[in-house]
């Protein structure tokens, strides 16, 4: 039954994809808008060109409608996928290299955030006093858009690359911190009592009782953080520039190369999905059935 359900769902997904592609294809077919060149004066042709409508017909229908057709998308995608790692200078790098820069920033910012958030979350979760004391700070800092930190980061750090990492750090820290604190605070009293009656040392208690007990909650926090970090990195790179998939999108927008923009958007989606899948796996590995 589940197999047939999966099969039917897959079939439906495929149909939806075909439908979307079909609509796309029909919408980007060269319309009748192409005015006959013969009736136009050279000035009118010049004017049309300035408006982005080339009446002489170079570049085909796709260029006329502005939005790339499926064929063009396929060829652009193929170009990118065939040569992801070329490097022809600052403004012309393979999409693989750009993605690598983004992933590197996210990874570094995320790991730094985890190194701060998880131990701090442990302390907050264990001590109601520290929880109460830090709560106002967390409540104020948490809702700040990570990009709002950017000017401050650029001013103090004076390095756009590190500022990008800082923005990732600051946006991934909160879900991890709060989830760790919550997970640690809600470890069952009875497990702690077992540890107590067995005279377990505080360090062993932390690593062998509290950490595994809170691990599913902590992993949930990490998964949320990673999702946010991947959202923020694109915007941050658009601001900071230089390298990265966000910068690539902005650069191609400036080049008015929509096929490249669309390809990058899809790529961001797929990578985000893979990152989430990775954390879902990790989460499953530490989840226990009670």
């Amino acid at each position: 039954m589940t197999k047939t359900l999966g099969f039917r769902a897959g079939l439906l997904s495929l149909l939806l994809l075909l439908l979307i592609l079909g609509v796309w294809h029909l919408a980007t077919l060269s319309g009748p808008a192409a005015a006959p060149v013969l009736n136009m004066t050279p000035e009118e042709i010049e004017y049309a060109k300035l408006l982005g409508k080339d009446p002489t017909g170079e570049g085909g229908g796709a260029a006329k409608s502005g939005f790339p057709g499926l064929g063009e998308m396929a060829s652009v995608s193929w170009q990118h996928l065939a040569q992801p790692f070329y490097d022809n200078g600052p403004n012309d790098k393979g999409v693989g290299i750009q993605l690598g820069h983004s992933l590197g920033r996210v990874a570094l910012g995320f790991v730094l955030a985890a190194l701060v958030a998880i131990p701090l979350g442990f302390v907050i979760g264990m001590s109601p006093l520290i929880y109460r004391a830090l709560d106002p700070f967390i409540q104020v800092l948490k809702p700040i858009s990570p990009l709002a930190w950017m000017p401050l980061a650029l001013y103090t750090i004076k390095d756009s690359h590190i500022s990008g990492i800082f923005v990732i750090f600051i946006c991934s820290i909160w879900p991890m911190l709060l989830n760790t604190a919550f997970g640690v605070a809600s470890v069952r009293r009875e497990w702690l009592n077992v540890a107590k009656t067995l005279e377990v040392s505080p360090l062993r208690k932390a690593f062998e009782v509290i950490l595994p007990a809170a691990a599913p909650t902590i992993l949930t926090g990490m998964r949320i953080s990673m999702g946010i970090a991947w959202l923020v990195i694109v915007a941050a790179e658009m601001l900071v520039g230089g390298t990265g998939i966000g910068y690539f999108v902005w650069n191609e927008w400036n080049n008015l190369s929509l096929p490249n923009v669309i390809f990058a958007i899809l790529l961001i989606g797929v990578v985000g999905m893979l990152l989430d899948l990775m954390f879902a796996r990790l989460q499953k590995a530490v989840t226990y059935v009670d």
Partner: protein
Amino acid sequence: MSTEARSTETRSTEFLKIEGLAKTYPGAAEPVFDSVNFGIARGEFVCIIGHSGCGKTTILNVLAGLESASSGHVFMGQREIAGPSLDRGVVFQGHALMPWLSVRKNIAFAVRSKWPQWSRAQVDEHVEKYVALVGLASAIDKKPSALSGGMKQRVGIARAFAIQPRMLLLDEPFGALDALTRGTIQDELLRICAETHQTVFMITHDVDEAILLADRILLMSNGPQARVAEVVKNTMSRDRQRANLHHDPQYYRIRNHLVDFLMARSKDLSHGRAPAQPLEVSPGLDSEPDAGPSGARPDTGLDGRAKIVPLRHVA
């Protein structure tokens, strides 16, 4: 005073001694219990019975070192108890196994706490011995979630025994189990205790369980200001078994005495009306069970009635 003399006299022979224990929760006008005095001899199995809210679990937690009393002292082997210790093994009400560890690792966790210097092989051997003791050798590498309630509680018991404590504390360990499973595990517990001469303090709500397992049964009056009002000596022979328990004439005398106390007398003894030093009685040796006193026991005038009224339905 005579009670004073008795307590000093018995202290030297008693392994565990509780003196004037009281607990008042913050904001409460009256203590949950006060002037709780009793002792447990080495190798003795003692059950405590009382209605909910009389502070049984609190007393057990104080003995375990998990809670502190408002006043009073607990001595074990002439030393005052302060905080938890590996000397006292606890079997918790909800088995309290760690669900992310297998049975083997759950028990190994306790064993490594007691003997941190042991090698992996030594720990393994010890763990396997105690898992076999509760008859779970085939499930040793399963996670608790794959076990039934009775099996989980067995693992909890194996974990407590594995650290070879000087005293075992059981907080209503079979409360959540069905009657059949409960019976089997009671038999197992009885056998293991007989083999190891373990000193045990156990909370129960089940009168029959207490009669089967305990050498002495502590009866607590109702809270607030509950006390150990009476100590019932189980005068039946120690090799009693579940199967033939109810053929012993002493059984009904003891059972009636316990049920009477819980149904009629325990309420009247709340608010500190129970004696501070409990009276020790042996209703099993009472020669005429249907004589005078039964008139004062309206709820269980007939033996047949007492037979079919388990405490959990009453309470």
